[in-house]
């Protein structure tokens, strides 16, 4: 019996991210969840702009791209056209919480039966480390090298809480991939998100705290510790809303 191998729903491609990037873990967990639920042939994924776009290479499922931030709107179009299929959008924090905030919130408000995964690494990774809406107070970024000053650019956005607040009967959770225990919880949340959609209960959203050693100018191992010490206190893990009957 195999215990731990590459998910069947994933291709043999190399993971196209920097050393220690959490995207690889998150993408694999989604693949595992697709395998576990047996929905590989029914699932369509959306990979919008940023580091997240590269995820299309990694899944052995139908995939498409989306303009920056429009993942939830593209997912809405797909889902309305194919209500029996499982539609997910895999996005970064700039994509979800800045340029695509309107599309995300409105998909949640409409209770679209889609799933959005948002990787929160508190920085713009693909463009080279500029401030994100999720950047912590005082955190270094190339656009605000002195650290994020809330007097200038406001406070970090709490997406899991926000979605739970606006979306009726949604599943909204925040997880992290900084240690084995959290990775296991993350997987459970991803499965629950898909189940919410499979059972046509409501919108589902999983915010995944994830390391970006390159953007943070840290070693990969330092970045795991930074999530534990700095990010989780600001972004508490847990389920913020769970649909009835899940």
């Amino acid at each position, binding site marked *: 019996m195999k*215990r731990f191998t*590459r998910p069947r729903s*994933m291709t043999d491609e190399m993971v196209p991210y920097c050393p*220690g990037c959490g995207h690889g873990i998150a993408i*694999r967990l989604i693949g595992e969840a697709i395998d576990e639920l047996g929905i590989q042939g029914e699932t369509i994924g959306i990979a919008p702009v940023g580091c997240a776009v590269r995820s299309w290479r990694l899944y052995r499922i139908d995939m498409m791209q989306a303009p920056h931030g429009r993942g939830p709107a593209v997912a809405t179009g797909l889902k309305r056209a194919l209500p029996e299929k499982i539609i997910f959008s895999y996005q970064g924090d700039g994509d979800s919480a800045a340029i695509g905030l309107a599309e995300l919130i409105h998909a949640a408000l409409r209770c679209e039966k889609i799933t959005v995964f948002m990787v929160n690494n508190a920085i713009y990774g693909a463009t080279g480390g500029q401030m994100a809406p999720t950047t912590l107070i005082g955190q270094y970024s190339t656009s605000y090298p002195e650290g994020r000053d809330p007097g200038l650019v406001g406070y970090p956005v709490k997406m899991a809480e926000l979605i739970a607040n606006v979306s009726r009967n949604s599943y909204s959770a925040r997880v992290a991939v900084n*240690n*084995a225990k959290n990775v*296991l919880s993350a997987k459970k949340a991803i499965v629950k998100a898909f189940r919410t959609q499979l059972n046509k209960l409501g919108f589902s959203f999983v915010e995944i705290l994830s390391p970006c050693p390159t953007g943070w100018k840290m070693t990969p191992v330092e970045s*795991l510790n930074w999530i534990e010490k700095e990010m989780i206190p600001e972004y508490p893990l847990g389920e913020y809303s769970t649909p009835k009957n899940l």
Partner: protein
Amino acid sequence: MKGKPLKAVKVSFDPERCKGCGYCSFVCPKHVIGFSENFNSRGFHYAFLNDPEKCIGCGFCALMCPDIAIRIEVINKD
């Protein structure tokens, strides 16, 4: 039970996929993962199991690997 394998498992590392981030060795409760002095073809010092006898097959390394470079197989159940 301490120090004994949970199950008889075979842990294998794919040196070509490894980017040497070190997450596997960081989370390994038995500290049995090391890094090769050699480079793989993309220039990373890849991870390997330097003391297979002490591995308890917990799977933490594979859970944390961002590059899906670690494979764990149960050789015989119980």
